[in-house]
């Protein structure tokens, strides 16, 4: 583990909020149609982390979600499969068994999701249990309270110890940008997470609004770009929460392509955390083929 002061003592560049918003507005005005749109929709599907994170989640609910991941829409045989199914640690086992042999990863949130307000030993235990149960990816939350209080060393240490506990599992670090307040804090947290061992940085838990807004995502993408230019290391990005339409997803893909380049248009480096996005994408794919506007009633839950 790196020493915390070394990890936490660096400067993040200041963020020009107005400039970010202007850049986002310009990127959002791109028009993606016909074949390019269809390609983007397929790519979006392959990047989705199909997610259920409710108190009411049961084994049945998770099996149903996995069934959806295995067969998105029976009428469209040539669809890519989603990247992963994302559940609570207690349900990793059932997800892993249901998805066995499919190539779809199981992601688990951990570290006392979504608040992260628990003793660090308990968080680490939760991570280990999730990985033992078969989680391929772990989505941790940072301690926003400590981070906002300026205790960057603590935040960095915590991320580094969770990374250690993950073993071979990929670590996604949730910044919960809706609680960070400013884009400067988002940039700072992104830099901190990447220097402390994150494989992915992720915007939000989905429990707090605003979640994955375009300006926040752009700032995180620029942090990833600068980290890549500095170290040569490719860190992944996962916007989560509030992306529910195919149109939003395509706008994100445009932004990724323009900020990080073609390499990041890949499920290994870019994910969407979403529960309702998949059906809207499927609706648009069927619409592209038939020319007829579709109803949500025709797609499984």
């Amino acid at each position, binding site marked *: 583990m790196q020493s915390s002061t070394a990890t936490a003592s660096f400067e993040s560049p200041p963020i020009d909020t107005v400039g970010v918003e202007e850049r986002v507005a310009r990127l959002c005005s791109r028009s993606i149609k016909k074949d390019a749109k269809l390609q983007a929709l397929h790519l979006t599907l392959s990047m989705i982390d199909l997610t259920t994170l409710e108190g009411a989640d049961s084994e049945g609910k998770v099996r149903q979600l996995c069934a959806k991941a295995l067969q998105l829409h029976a009428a469209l045989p040539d669809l890519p499969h989603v990247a992963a199914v994302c559940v609570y640690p207690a349900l990793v086992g059932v997800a892993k068994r249901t998805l066995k042999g499919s190539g779809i990863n199981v992601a688990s949130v951990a570290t006392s999701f979504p608040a992260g307000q628990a003793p660090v030993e308990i968080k680490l235990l939760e991570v280990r249990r999730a990985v033992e149960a078969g989680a391929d990816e772990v989505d941790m939350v940072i301690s926003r309270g400590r981070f906002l209080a300026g205790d960057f060393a603590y935040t960095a240490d915590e991320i580094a110890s969770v990374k250690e506990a993950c073993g071979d599992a990929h670590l996604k670090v949730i910044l919960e940008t809706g609680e960070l307040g400013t884009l400067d804090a988002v940039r700072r947290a992104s830099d901190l997470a990447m220097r402390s061992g994150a494989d992915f940085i992720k915007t939000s838990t989905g429990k707090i609004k605003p979640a994955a807004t375009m300006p926040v995502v752009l700032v995180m993408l620029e942090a990833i770009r600068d980290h890549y230019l500095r170290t040569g290391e490719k860190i992944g990005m996962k916007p989560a929460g509030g992306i529910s339409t195919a149109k939003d997803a395509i706008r994100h893909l445009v932004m990724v392509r323009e900020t990080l380049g073609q390499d990041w248009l890949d499920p290994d480096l870019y994910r969407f955390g979403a529960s309702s996005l998949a059906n809207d994408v499927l609706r648009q794919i069927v619409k592209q083929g038939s*020319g*007829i*506007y*579709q*109803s*949500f*009633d*025709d797609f499984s839950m």
Partner: protein
Amino acid sequence: MSERRPAAASHRLPVLKTHKVYVGGKFPRSESGRFDRTLAPDGTPIANICRCSRKDVRDAVTAARAAQAGWAARTAYNRGQVLYRIAEMLEGRSGQFGALLAAGGATPDEAAAEVQAATDRLLHYAGWTDKFQQVFSSVNPVATSHFNFSILEPMGVVGVLAPESPLLGLVSSIAPAIAGGNTTVVLVTGSQPLPATTFGEVLNSSDVPGGVVNILTGRRDEMLAPLAAHRDVDALLLCSPDPDVARSAEIEAVHNLKRVAVRPHEDWTDVQSPYEITDLQEVKTTWHPIGS
């Protein structure tokens, strides 16, 4: 030379109204940015109105779908109150509607009579909202030991091709649909769209939840086919005397087996009956086991 003068009253620039569409309780322009010019019978331009596209149809259906469950969940009595409120607001604007109809070619007497008839029509359906269920539901005699009954439920989202009759016909097609708990997407494609866009303002100030009635203006050949084919629309009410229009829409409607009701009337004076409501209702029959 450049001395300032106060503008004379006779040189005042006229403030012309922009007639926008009514979707989801808001008044947007068409997403396409296009517009058509409405002309008076003598050829003078009166106003610019939105020329909506299929994407406006799509957005209106989304708004109608979002509003449908909440509207159907209102008590029938409350729906009656809301319809009555529309009539009140229409009555309060009778002068404005009279002027719009007169600008479209009606005599002042005809215009006043049509506004009155439209107001009365709303009252008629306001009265029926909490009564048609009693009249048309039934307890059915069956040979087995079941309690068997049929009730009416709203179809859901109803697409309406509004008739040429600019106010009475419009009201007569919308009122029975919403009285029964449906939400509507109304395509106004006739030669006099201004009463319809103004009726949107009446609806917006009458306790009608946003999305229950959505009014789009534009051309029939651009909007009807996407609406008729849309899989999230449950029924069509086609108010056109042209059998080819109804036929082509019925062909598009076959994808999700929409119910299609055709109203070929040109004179809407007498088109008023509870069957106008039940034509846009689904019958649900329940077999409830009982001891023999």
